[in-house]
């Protein structure tokens, strides 16, 4: 099954996966990424925002300003297009992962 649209790199997949759980602003997304990966994904936090902007340009996420918590933050949520792309890319990733596992299993 072909992905709806190719997501460039694993970071996009991870970001969409985090946002899918619930809409969040950048700080919450980055914290969730770090916590859920047990520190495995620890990238320069400022570079995540351009990645979120790119996903928004591509139509996978939508965003809006929120001032409810005393500070002006941009909250990101998944669009229907983003849901489809995430599902397709997740399938592709699991197939790839299973393939690598399988090969490594034979090599061992």
């Amino acid at each position: 099954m072909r992905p709806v649209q190719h997501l460039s790199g694993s970071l996009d997949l991870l970001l969409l996966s985090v946002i899918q759980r619930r809409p969040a602003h950048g700080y919450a997304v980055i914290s969730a990424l770090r916590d859920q990966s047990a520190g495995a994904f620890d990238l320069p936090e400022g570079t995540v925002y351009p990645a979120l902007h790119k996903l928004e340009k591509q139509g996978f996420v939508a965003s809006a300003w929120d001032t409810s918590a005393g500070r002006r933050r941009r909250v990101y949520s998944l669009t229907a297009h983003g849901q489809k792309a995430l599902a397709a890319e997740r399938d592709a990733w699991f197939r790839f992962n299973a393939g690598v596992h399988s090969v490594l299993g034979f090599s061992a």
Partner: protein
Amino acid sequence: MRTNEPEPIEVYLDELLLSLRVPPRQARRILAEAEAHLRDTAEALSSAGMGPLDAEREAVRRHGSVDEVASSCHAVHGHLPLQVAASAGQALLCLAALALVAIGVSGGVAALMNAAGGAHFVGALPATYSRSVCSSYLHLHPSATSCQQAAMLETAQDAVALRVLTGAVGIVILGAALAWRRQLRGRGVRIAGIDEAAAGVAAVGFGGAAVLLLGQAVDLAVQHGSGGVGWYLSGGVIALAAFVPSAVLAYRGLRPIVARGLRPSLAAPA
């Protein structure tokens, strides 16, 4: 008690602002999100027991270097100097195309002058021709009784045909230039002042051409009578007609820019 040491987050944001080469709306958003993120991080670190200044320094360190963040932003939002160059290039191409179209229209005026005043009015330029040029003219116009008459007929024809052909090329180029402009606008690239500057250049160009061509027409009429006056008059009239709207657009567009000072700015993306 506060020290005089500059606040790391403020310094970082200042440097990020100076490094960003993106449209202003994107720049404001990037800075707002960066500041919120940095302050959230510093707050969390302070709550965990870190001193306020150390918390800010650590927040800045985790955020990544200004160069790193700015480069990532440029990759997504486009690089302003390139956008300015693209906008200027598209405006120049439009200008060149409009100049060619104006030449084409002057060919139409020359055709009318040929019909109304005869080929003498447009084609009888005071010139001498070599023997080889004479024989080629006479070959093209066998009904002509002399080299001068053949040259007049050829010149009167060229005033129409070559100019109209130039105008047709100009229309094609104008189509391409307008398509490029639509593409840039679709990507949110709109540089304030470029269109107005282009109108200014058009006004100067068309105005100068009008003065030159009409001056030549008057000079020719005074020196040699009506022969060949149409060659210059047809161009001068169109140049003058193009000058007027260009000058009006340039005046309306440039006056507010000059009034508020020469400061580069961007139009907000559509």
